[in-house]
């Protein structure tokens, strides 16, 4: 089975290729990259006017499997990922039961192998049952195939335990991803603390709830000399803290999500539960700081935090509505519209943050489009505008505040392991 991708604008941050190339895919691998390839006996993809980039890599998503299959499962989640141009995704362990054991990690890997449309890399927990009390069997998680550990959804509240987690994880060279939230400061908050929470009479989550924990984890990473990866950065002060730590040489990486550079707390107006997410949507100043952090490489990764929820979990009072939004199918258009087209990130830098960096932080051999590599390829149209329609999502869940938004950037082809999964914007 051969695929010939003709005349696309190839952008590969790792090799530095940035121009019009033809790409030949054979037996699941990239066989050749060059110009004026002729091959009649193959599946021809005309990529004229389109960008050809390494398949997108998501370092942070929720597939809800096992335990919450009514929201999403590995099949529907990976279909949604492919639709959004992602070819490799790392799923968080807050399933039921939590992915805190070798058995659960193997379940996810095996199910992804049989049902999955893209490559799935499970993330294990830091603590048993994500309870924040005792370390999980981190060594076993790693050898079962976990690419990182995180108690995502909950912070590791005890500073002492977090220090031990970093030290212990360093033995196995496994990335520790921290969900930074001081739960005492966040208290019963349900949205960003500020004018909007005040006029809606909703309890607020101060920016400080995130920032104090970011500061703590930076200090612990510096002290233990073990790298830490900060999940879903949402505030200006968090960006500044991480920027300073990087300057000091602290081994820290971090991610933000599309909603933190494209929406503010005002999206929650009129008690719009679709905009309820944790960390919460912040202010204009925070959005600007996130963009600045992406621009100056303080922020390494754009991750989706794809968080599917059933409509019954959103169609309730704001205070009890579930946190999170589906992310795979809007991530690329949001990045193109808010970062690439306004000139904040070049295509090369976008590839760095959505392909190369997540692969390197998770130590997986993805994110590069070069001869000899597995053919994970995404082909996108930067200039095409489309209206986001939640009813057309491939995810089981439709909880997106972006419904009806007109965005630039479409995913025209997704190729996984040399197989075309999305062709002319249609999931096969």
């Amino acid at each position, binding site marked *: 089975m051969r695929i010939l991708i003709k005349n696309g604008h190839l952008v590969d941050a790792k090799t530095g290729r940035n121009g019009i190339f033809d790409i030949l895919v054979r037996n699941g691998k990239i066989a050749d990259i060059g110009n004026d390839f002729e091959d009649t006996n193959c599946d021809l993809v005309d990529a004229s006017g389109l960008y050809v980039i390494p398949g997108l890599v998501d370092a942070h998503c929720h597939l809800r499997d096992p335990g919450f299959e009514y929201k999403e499962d590995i099949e529907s989640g990976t279909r949604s990922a492919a639709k959004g141009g992602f070819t490799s995704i790392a799923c968080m362990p807050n399933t039921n039961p939590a992915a805190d054991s070798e058995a659960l990690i193997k379940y996810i890997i095996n199910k992804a192998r049989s049902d999955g449309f893209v490559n799935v890399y499970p993330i294990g927990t830091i603590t048993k049952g994500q309870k924040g009390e005792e370390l999980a069997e981190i060594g076993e998680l790693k050898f079962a195939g976990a690419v990182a550990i995180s108690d995502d959804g909950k912070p590791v509240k005890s500073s002492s335990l977090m220090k031990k987690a970093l030290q212990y994880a360093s033995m196995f060279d496994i990335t520790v991803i921290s969900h930074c939230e001081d739960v005492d400061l966040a208290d019963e908050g349900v949205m960003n603390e500020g004018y909007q*929470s*005040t*006029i809606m*009479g909703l*309890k607020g989550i101060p920016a400080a709830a995130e920032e104090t924990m970011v500061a703590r984890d930076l200090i612990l990473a510096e002290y233990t000399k073990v790298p830490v990866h900060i999940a879903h950065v949402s505030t200006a002060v968090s960006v500044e803290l991480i920027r300073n730590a990087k300057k000091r040489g602290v081994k820290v990486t971090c991610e933000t999500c599309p909603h933190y550079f494209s929406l503010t707390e005002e999206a929650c107006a009129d008690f719009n539960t679709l905009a309820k997410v944790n960390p919460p949507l912040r202010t204009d100043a925070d959005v600007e700081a996130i963009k600045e952090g992406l621009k100056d490489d303080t922020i390494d990764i754009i991750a989706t935090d794809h968080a599917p929820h059933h409509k019954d979990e959103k169609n*309730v009072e704001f205070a009890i509505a579930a946190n999170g939004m589906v992310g795979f199918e809007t991530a690329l258009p949001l990045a193109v519209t808010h970062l690439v087209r306004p000139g904040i990130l070049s295509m090369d830098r976008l590839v760095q943050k959505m392909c190369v960096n997540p692969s390197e932080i998770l130590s997986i051999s993805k994110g590069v489009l070069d001869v000899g590599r597995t053919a994970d390829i995404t082909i996108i149209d930067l200039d095409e505008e489309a209206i986001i329609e939640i009813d057309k999502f491939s995810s089981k869940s439709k909880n997106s505040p972006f419904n009806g938004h007109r965005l630039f950037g479409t995913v025209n082809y997704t190729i996984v392991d040399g197989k075309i999964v999305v062709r002319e914007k249609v999931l096969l």
Partner: protein
Amino acid sequence: MNLKSKDLLGLKDISAEEIDYILETAKTMKYIITSNNKRTPHLQGKSIITLFYENSTRTRLSFELASKYMSASAANISASDSSVLKGETLIDTGRTIDRMGTDVIIIRHPMSGAPQLLAKHVKASVINAGDGMHEHPTQALLDMFTIKEKKGGIKGLKIAIIGDVYHSRVARSNIWGMQKLGAEVCVAGPATLLPPGIEKTGARVFSTVQEALIDADVVMGLRIQLERQKKGLFPTVREYSRFFGLDDKRLLFAKENALVIHPGPVNRGVELSSTVIDSDRSAIDEQVTNGVAVRMALLYLLTRRSGNENLN
């Protein structure tokens, strides 16, 4: 004139003209309450339900009497005896009530935004009788009615709201409503009980009661929930009343004829001294009567609106 919306969910999104119209209509209703025959046909043939997810005595009774004085069929549902305890969602409960031919649902709920959610899913008019820390529009309407009655108008008055603004839906509704009618609103309270960004509503914020009270025409004390102390929001009731309690001495900063109001129930000796509560300047008892009048006016205007759609 008709009210623009089928519902009254808050005063933030209602016009000054509509507020004036409700208050003007309430004047007529007050005659009825103070007359010998408290029965009018305004709501004859209408069905009104109070759906209360929070304990309440005065607001619920006030709505119930308002309905009955105007000949409506009225019934009550409490969270304690409803299917809420069986896990029914607000939307499902609302739809059930709606399908029984209800014209108005009056809801009180501990979560902000619950009336908005309900209103989107029912044909009936929804009146917010207090939702979380969000709004309590009928309380603010009765406060404004009382001020108008006592002061002859609201425009140009300086109104001081003192106490736990953070948790107060009464304060929020009044801040919107009073400013729409042209008053200057000043708030003061412990720093831990002032919500962030409240100054963006237009209200002026002061850190001491004295500053907020200077030359005030109206002083509103807010109820302090004693359990807030356990959450670390203020140290003791004693210290609260020492720095924020309203007594004769502190009221010297306000205008001599300043009116004192309170949404009730009052913690005597905490927010207000007993002397102040029982003095001539206090309109606290009057507020209760006016509450029924304002609710009668609102029920009448909302049901008339739905019945007369073809005529206008």
